[in-house]
């Protein structure tokens, strides 16, 4: 029934491993991946625990469609309590290791406790080994990947690892898999490193075979692939331009956060856009973009594989970066570029490579550098802290330097590794931190896209675009166009997107499919693979259940309705240019109604009636 019905539990304190059947009652309520792992986490840890203490757990989890032929069916998530936000963290990644884990016969791995010494986990089907990682501790993700591949002499070994930034306590460190895919947000890599767990290496040769109704499944899968191929976004836009297709579009609607969100349009946007990645360089006539790439089973293939100009200052004496690697996605290009005012596409690509090499979230990192640049501009941070570096908006050299020291956890990089909230508090200007619940904003200014303000304020993992991507409706008109400057109807829209996304993230599929697919396209695939009564309606209800489960975890962790807010800048300083000129985000017009449509009381707590309705 698509699930492997097998959980691998790893006690790092004791150095022991065990297997247990998946809780199928919970699988019926929460499906898999995000929802199901959050249920395990909520049941097994104290929500008030220290995220970096041995009481926290880290769950690497697949969904029921992970490892199948369903398009994009290769996703996995890392679920834990976040050290950045203190809230629940669930970071989703593609690449290949999720499907490999499923093919090895596991739905999820639950890591408990803390190893007394650096270790990695090796999984080859039923063979599981906790092995010493002394030789790769203190090394980058890429170095660890190379070492493990050499040690096992297996080119098909799939590896997820943390880098030096995570070891040094950077609060937004990622778990990087397959060299340049990442469970990127909320510091899930920091938690992994806090357990002295350097890497997870997986080889699975069993495959995924227990499909409930194979004929119906292949029919639903092929119908789904056809819809993706024929859709303008998933069939043309994303494969050709990647998520970077958005750079010029969002800039034009005046929702491109610029220079620590002081402005809403970036004059250098076209220089760091998807179109720019296709332009041949003057030096060697080659474009930044080498090819697009697909994750496991993905028929969209939005991934970017890029090179940096060999003559660029960042790599001219570093041949190790002359080859191709994971290129700029829109979020990284925005955070590293527009938000820092840097319009040098080679510098951004270099920073992106380094973020992958040592495993940090380029969104939180870029936004933290942007905050540091503003603090430098007003004199709160000086050359004394930066060791002489001029940390100015627009400086490609400063960006490259900041990336290197943060990734290695050296000097001022340790300050940058705290994230924007703690950095701005340390230097006396908490209002300059563009964060919600301690997590940095992504690339959509909520003054120009009102629904995104509510999205950010109520996201269960802090500011995040992937919890309810109302940009889809407010800018792109999918599934139907709404006015980005209007607040009416947005509470209902945000709720619908949050619930639908929660269940897509629990299936093993990629949320990017939803530019073309609705739950009506997804439900037949889930139902045929899993059995049971999975319809669009029951999936949406499960999504709502998952959202409320996360909310209750956060409330138990100590968060309150007061945390459902936005930085003062976005609520009081109007956009200066573009179609949103004169607008602030009008969160107060949306939040009370949102609580109401959620079935929560005025304190943002789910009512007993809501809890009963959702079987919580």
């Amino acid at each position, binding site marked *: 029934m698509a699930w492997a019905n097998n959980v691998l539990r790893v006690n790092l304190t004791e150095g022991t491993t065990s297997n247990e059947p998946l809780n199928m009652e919970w699988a019926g309520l929460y499906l898999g991946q995000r929802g199901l792992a959050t249920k395990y986490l909520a049941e097994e840890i104290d929500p008030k625990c220290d995220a970096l203490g041995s009481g926290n757990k880290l769950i690497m989890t697949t969904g029921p469609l992970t490892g199948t032929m369903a398009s994009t069916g290769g996703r996995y998530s890392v679920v834990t309590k976040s050290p950045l936000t203190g809230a629940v963290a669930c970071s989703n990644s593609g690449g*290949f290791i999720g499907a490999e884990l499923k093919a090895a016969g596991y739905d999820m791995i639950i890591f408990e406790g803390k190893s007394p010494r650096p270790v990695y986990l090796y999984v080859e089907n039923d063979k599981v080994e906790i092995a010493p990682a002394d030789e790769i501790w203190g090394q980058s993700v890429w170095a660890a990947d190379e070492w493990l591949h050499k040690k096992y002499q297996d080119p098909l070994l799939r590896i997820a690892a943390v880098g030096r930034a995570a070891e040094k306590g950077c609060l937004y460190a990622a778990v990087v898999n397959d060299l340049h895919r990442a469970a990127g947000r909320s510091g899930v890599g920091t938690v992994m490193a806090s357990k002295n767990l350097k890497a997870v290496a997986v080889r699975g040769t069993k*495959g995924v075979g227990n499909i409930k109704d194979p004929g119906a499944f292949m029919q639903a899968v092929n119908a789904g692939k056809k819809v993706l191929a024929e859709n303008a976004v998933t069939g043309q836009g994303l494969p050709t331009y990647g998520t970077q297709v958005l750079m010029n579009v969002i800039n034009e609607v005046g929702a491109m956060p610029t220079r620590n969100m002081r402005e809403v349009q970036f004059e250098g946007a076209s220089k760091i856009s998807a179109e720019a990645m296709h332009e041949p360089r003057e030096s060697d006539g080659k474009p930044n973009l080498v090819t697009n790439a697909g994750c496991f089973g993905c028929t969209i293939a939005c991934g970017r594989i890029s090179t940096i100009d060999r003559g660029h200052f960042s790599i001219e004496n570093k041949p190790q970066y002359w080859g191709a690697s994971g290129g700029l996605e829109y979020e990284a290009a925005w955070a590293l570029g527009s938000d820092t005012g840097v319009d040098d596409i080679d510098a951004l690509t270099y920073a992106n490579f380094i973020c992958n090499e040592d495993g940090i979230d380029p969104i939180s990192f870029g936004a933290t550098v942007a905050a540091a640049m503003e603090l430098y501009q007003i004199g709160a941070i000086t050359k004394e802290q930066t060791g002489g570096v001029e940390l100015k908006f627009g400086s490609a050299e400063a960006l490259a330097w900041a990336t290197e020291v943060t990734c290695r956890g050296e000097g001022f990089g340790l300050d940058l590794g705290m994230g924007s909230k703690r950095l701005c508090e340390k230097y006396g200007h908490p209002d300059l931190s563009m964060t919600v619940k301690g997590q940095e904003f992504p690339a959509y200014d909520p003054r120009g896209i009102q629904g995104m303000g509510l999205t950010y304020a109520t996201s269960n993992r802090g500011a995040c675009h992937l919890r309810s991507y109302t940009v889809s409706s407010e800018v792109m008109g999918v599934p139907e166009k709404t006015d980005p400057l209007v607040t009416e109807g947005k509470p209902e829209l945000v709720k619908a997107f949050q619930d639908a996304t929660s269940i897509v993230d629990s299936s093993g599929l990629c949320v990017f499919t939803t530019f073309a697919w609705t739950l009506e396209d997804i439900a037949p695939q889930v139902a045929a693979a899993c059995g049971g009564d999975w319809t669009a309606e029951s999936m949406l209800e499960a999504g709502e259940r998952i959202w409320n489960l996360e909310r209750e975890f956060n409330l138990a962790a100590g968060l309150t309705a007061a945390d459902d807010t936005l930085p003062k800048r976005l609520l009081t300083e109007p956009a200066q240019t573009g179609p949103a000129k004169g607008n602030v985000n009008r969160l107060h017009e949306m939040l009370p109604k949102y609580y109401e449509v959620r079935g929560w009381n005025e304190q943002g707590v789910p009512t007993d009636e809501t809890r009963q309705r959702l079987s919580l």
Partner: protein
Amino acid sequence: MLRALQIEPEKCTGCLQCELACSYQAEGVFNPAKSRIKVFTFHDEGRFIPYTCTQCSEAWCMHACPVEAIVLNEETGSKDVLADVCVGCKVCTIACPFGTVNYNQDTKVVYKCDLCGGDPECAKACPTAAITYVDADHTGLARMRAHAAASAN
């Protein structure tokens, strides 16, 4: 008309849909580890290259087999393994210059591409037409056309 698999690596995104389709057709599981077609990633160059048996006319594997377990399928031109005849000696895996015949530890016999009996699943599953099933006399046609277009400019 015989047809053959035509592979155009420059179109491949490395998604492994071909491996999933192949393993599901042949083994009943979604399992790249048991696929007859393999996609190789050349990371530093940003290239993905699918590779499988080209169905040699004078097939080394077929000639090397001591028990005649590899036979010509007259209809499709494929060289097929007769699993119930194969003794798992692996001589064919040594004889094949391209590595496209391999041993399966679970079944204890070798396996290779059989063109799915004339309707290859990999080609149907490929989202970018990097793998197509075309007239065996003209597998170079698309490449010739591209070069013709380039030479005209």
